């Protein structure tokens, strides 16, 4: 396994949810140390892809390899402990727990590292301010920050983040972009972000994959996609909300 091998590889992954055949052979590579954007219209299978990686739904065919191990059939907690942090679409905040308690739970290996916490407070100052408040009273943007903070509270190999900009005001999205730039500075970070907002995706993504109908229909460098208007039109005309 060379250093250049992708951190995460999906090979012909099929996922069924009840009677529905959602993923129909997903092939995806997530390179190390980069931020990969997973784009596609609603219902293309982006969220299902992340949930299948996390083991929240199990693939009926195909394989998911992470850092050299085949994790296709692993239980969710074991996948998390292998070093994958997950920020679900609904953020998965524990509303009855305080901000502090939410982060305490996410820090599996013991007390929260003080320096890392300061770094997180630097990224998301609101969390420090509401440290002892029930997370349920936070605004949508603050909940999103807490959810991301929970994922990065300890070093992990891979971050899966589902639509971090969903429902957020433009000012808060700008804040979020700054935070992601900061996050990318630590060289070892590998991130896979599901996104609908092309402006957001364009400003952050190193690599990009576009899904449609339960398959990955395009994969490559973000710069290439940004440069190629025809390709954008063909892929994103149907995959992205042009109002954004």
């Amino acid at each position, binding site marked *: 396994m060379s250093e250049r091998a992708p951190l995460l590889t999906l090979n012909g992954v099929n996922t069924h949810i009840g009677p529905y055949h959602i993923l129909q052979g997903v092939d995806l590579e997530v390179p190390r140390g980069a931020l990969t954007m997973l784009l596609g219209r609603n219902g293309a299978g982006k969220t299902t892809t992340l949930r299948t990686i996390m083991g929240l739904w199990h693939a009926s065919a195909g394989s998911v390899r992470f850092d050299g191990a085949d994790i296709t059939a692993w239980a969710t907690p074991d996948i*998390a402990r292998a070093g994958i942090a997950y920020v679900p679409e609904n953020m998965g905040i524990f509303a009855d727990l305080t901000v502090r308690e939410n982060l305490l739970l996410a820090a599996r290996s013991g007390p929260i590292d003080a320096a890392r916490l300061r770094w997180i407070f630097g990224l998301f100052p609101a969390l420090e301010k509401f440290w002892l408040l029930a997370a349920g009273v936070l605004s949508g943007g603050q909940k999103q920050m807490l959810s991301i903070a929970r994922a990065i509270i300890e070093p992990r190999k891979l971050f899966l983040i589902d639509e971090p900009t969903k429902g957020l005001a433009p000012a808060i999205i700008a804040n979020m972009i700054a935070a992601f730039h900061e996050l990318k500075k630590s060289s070892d970070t590998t991130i896979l972000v599901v996104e609908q907002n092309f402006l957001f995706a364009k400003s952050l993504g190193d690599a990009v994959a576009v899904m449609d109908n339960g398959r990955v229909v395009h994969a490559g460098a973000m710069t290439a996609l940004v440069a190629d208007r025809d390709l954008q039109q063909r892929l994103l005309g149907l995959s992205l909300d042009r109002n954004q």
Partner: protein
Amino acid sequence: MTTRVEQALPPRRRDLAPILLVPLVALAALPLVGSLSTWVTLTLAGLAMGMIIFIIASGLTLVFGLMDVLNFGHGAFISIGAYTAAVLAPSLSGLIRADSLALNLIALLALIALAMAVTGVLGYAFERIIIMPVYRQHLKQILVTIGGLIVAEQIIIAVFGPVLIVLPLPTAFRGSLVFGDIAIERYRLIAVVVGLVIFAAMVLILDRTRIGLLIRAGVENGEMVEALGYHIRRLFAGVFIAGSALAGLGGVMWGFYREALTPGMGMDVMVLVFIVVVIGGLGSVGGCFIGSLLVAVVANYTGFLAPKLALGSNILLMALILLWRSRGLYPVAKR
């Protein structure tokens, strides 16, 4: 840049109204009862009874809160706890018959520990065999746990016979303490201490430990707990064991209170347990505590003021509470 959002935040407020309910009911009853000493006696006896009910009900609400499982089998564990105490009591008869509070307490604690161990182990088996296949299927859960209750009750009858079994109270727990006109049974005081210890332990564990955090988080969103790297099934098993052990503890306390055991005693008390957890809000430990006290003091006051109404007072109280808060005093998030 987020200041506008921050200012809009409502301050976090504690919901105090249910906590005030018991003192308010007690105060309202004072002029009705008339005599101060009678009122104090009634209130103290009621609070102590409420503690016993809380001990019995706490495990059920804990299990329901995390696992969303309504366990009718809880009644069986209550009976098993009591019968375990009855079986083991003769071998501790030296400690039980001694007229020494210390020796009696040692005997009680030993019986409690053993009963909790037995019901805890059985609870683990029950969770694996009976409950695991029917998570998230309410109808089947109710049916299967009732089936488990029938089988357990029948096995108790098979082993001990359908007759009454006597569980005599340790010597120093008998009788009442009298202060002027006010009398309170000694055993009720013991029950108060045990009940407070259990309540404090549950609150501390839920509030201050990682396990408690996990349980509270699991109540809200079990999937996210798993995605953070914790095996929720193990947590379920642990909580179910704890819930069954608490039922066993409740069975011992309840058995000593009645001093006579019948195979159906667990099921008989389940109606009261259900009323208490419905009043408190399904799954809420604090609500269960307040609900237990409320049910017991109200039953005592109505028993004194209008004996004919006493038997219906629980239902009446439940109806009133549900009219006020349709999901109980402290509805648990998500449900």
